[in-house]
């Protein structure tokens, strides 16, 4: 039940990061690892697809905070897309819409990168 999985694939000048399952204090390190790998490769245009993520805890939210400065300092961005209502509520409550661009689906987010 608490399985968590991250899949990444390139799409144009951006990377799509697909999240599956539960993102909490236990699984957050997996996501951190994926982020730091992308940082190491110099990939800073990131779209996170939340379609298959069913739960996120505050520790999971923390991961996005940890990398946003580095990404933006390198003229990139983390754009969030395809959240289920429950997951969106968590982001919304915390005020993430002030900090991140949040889209209904990933193509919309990808378009933003490709337009630059």
């Amino acid at each position: 039940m608490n399985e968590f999985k991250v899949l990444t694939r390139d799409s144009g000048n951006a990377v799509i990061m697909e999240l599956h399952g539960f993102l909490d204090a236990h699984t957050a390190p997996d996501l951190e690892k994926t982020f730091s790998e992308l940082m190491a490769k110099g990939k800073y245009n990131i779209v996170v697809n939340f379609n298959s993520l069913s739960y996120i805890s505050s520790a999971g939210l923390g991961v996005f905070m940890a990398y946003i400065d580095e990404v933006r300092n390198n003229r990139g961005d983390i754009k969030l897309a395809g959240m289920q209502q429950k997951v969106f509520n968590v982001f919304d409550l915390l005020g993430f819409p002030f900090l991140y661009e949040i889209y209904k689906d990933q193509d919309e987010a990808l378009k933003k990168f490709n337009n630059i």
Partner: protein
Amino acid sequence: MRLNFRNSLYFVAAGSIATLLLVYDWIRISINLEDPVLNGFRSLFTIAAFAFLYAAMRIFRTKKSAKPLEILRKLVAYGFFSAAIISTWGIMLENRGASSGNFMPSNIMQLLATTAFAFGIAAFVIFLLMTMSDIIYIKPDRKVRRRFELFIIFALAASFLSVFDGSSFLSVLRDIAFGVSVFIALLHIVSMNWIVFLTKKEKYKSLVHSFVLMVLFGYSYASIGPANLAGGVLGFYSPPMSEFAKIAFLFLTIYFSLAFIVTIFHIPTSGVFEKKKRELDSYQNLSKVITNVMDTSEVLNNTVAVVGAVTQANKVWIELRYEDDGTSTEEYRISATHRTSQYELSTFDFGEVRKAVRSEKRVIVQDADEFVKFNLKNFPAKSLLAVPLTAHDDYIGVLYAAHEMPYAFDDEEISTVSAFADTAAVAIQNSLLFTKSIENERLQHELRIAHEMQLKLLPTSLPSSDRFETDFLSFPAFEVGSDYIDCSRIDGRRYAFVVGDVSGKGTSAAFYMAYMKGVFQSLSASARSPLEFMMAANEAVGSTLQKNFFITLIYVMLDGETGEASVVRAGHTPGVLISPDGEAGEMNCRLIRPAGAGLGLEQSDDFGRHLGEEKFVLRHNDTLVLYTDGITDQRNPGGEDFGEQRFYDLLKELSDGSPTEIKGGIIRALAEFSQGTDAVDDTTVLILKWR
């Protein structure tokens, strides 16, 4: 060794019979009476006399002393005295005109000397056999005991049969009994196990003693033969006793000839035997250490020292394996050394040996080519033995022993070291677990302190007045929590209530929570408005928190006179306002959710720009509830969340009651819902009711 009444009686009986015999003998030699039947009866009387002597002498029987060499020394002393008496008495009698052959005392002096001699020899024979039984009963064994008893029985039988000298049939039987007793004496060769346990030095001593005893007893045996005067004297006085003494001396001669030979054969193996004994002792020491010592380094040091002593290896050391659970890497550390040092060993890489130990259980490197194969070309030893330390199927390290000679470890030694390694591994693991459990205990204790400290940071009660009433609940899910609840009085009529949640759990979150209390207590008094408070709090928190941490907060400023409330929210779960609606008595539920991001997420400018404020006035019977998501995230065994809606409905249902009643209702509902499912997050609820 106290002469008691019974023993004195035996002595008196022996003495009386001896005196009667003396009188009879005097008559006998005076009238030259030689009747075989009478002589036979006389012999029976001598037997009775010697039997009483034996019974009386049993008092001299020593408490079994287990040291074979002590007994041998005693035997040498007795043997020397008896040999001396036999030779001197013979010479003495000869000088007084006695001749060998069919000896017959010719005067009263010779008769007295004969009697004294017979009893002297009898006493010595009894002494010797009693002492012999001590040596035979070392490491007793029923067979050995029976064999010795059998020997005594046949010897006694032979002596009884010599009472009636005339009959040729009886003398054949006597010779048979004699032969059997000698044969039994020879059988003792298989039971000289006392020799085995002697040290090498003791064996040499035993060799000398056995030789001396063999000569002394052989001489004694030969001297009491019928051809000698001493033999003639004994034969005259008591043929059975003469027979018994002969058998006894022959037995002793045979026994110590055999002991001499057996000792010679055991000398070459005594080195091995001593080594085995040393191993066994070390093993016992090690076992003692294992059961008594909980200090890991002591166990390790003892193990290498014991292995060093038993194998006489030049270098012995132990490497323990350390596993990092997080990165699943392993590391080996040299943990104990004997006749070598970490410094010396640190220049060599035992990686190949370790690999082989893991797959092959034990590794023996004995020649130069093999050392090259294991990447240990310049290792200062010519033999290396490595065995795994395995306890309860856990592989915890490697025990190494090195020797400067090639092919230094034989099978025996290898199996010894392996056995040591197995025993030591259990001890090492036990001590490691013990240390770990102490460490755990200490951490538990620290956590308990942290838990208590944190409880002190939470308020014991919140303010109430005649206009409003409050209550709250706050349970950490683990020892230390990340929820925060507090209140401060801003001035005469205004109060600040706050509920917050630090992201993440555990000790670091608990520290931030404590920090948050400091921020709240200092800022709430000086801030002119809730917005100003929140801005300042974001500033204070943002500069302190790690990037991936943040704090959510909801802050209510309440005018205690008018019920005017102003709420700001930094990413926290919304406040819930339950108000009676109209006359129908229905309850209306409204969420207080001004905009605002969590503290530490945004820089001041952005944070301030996004921050909203919500104002309202509390009316009669209004209930304002602040909470953290621990309550809505509570699961039941079916994996279902308690959820917002259920919580709001519950509040509506309970809102008729006082804050304390509402709190009770919430706790009951949670318990009923969770059915024992552990909370995953801290649970905090603040309830404020306007009268």
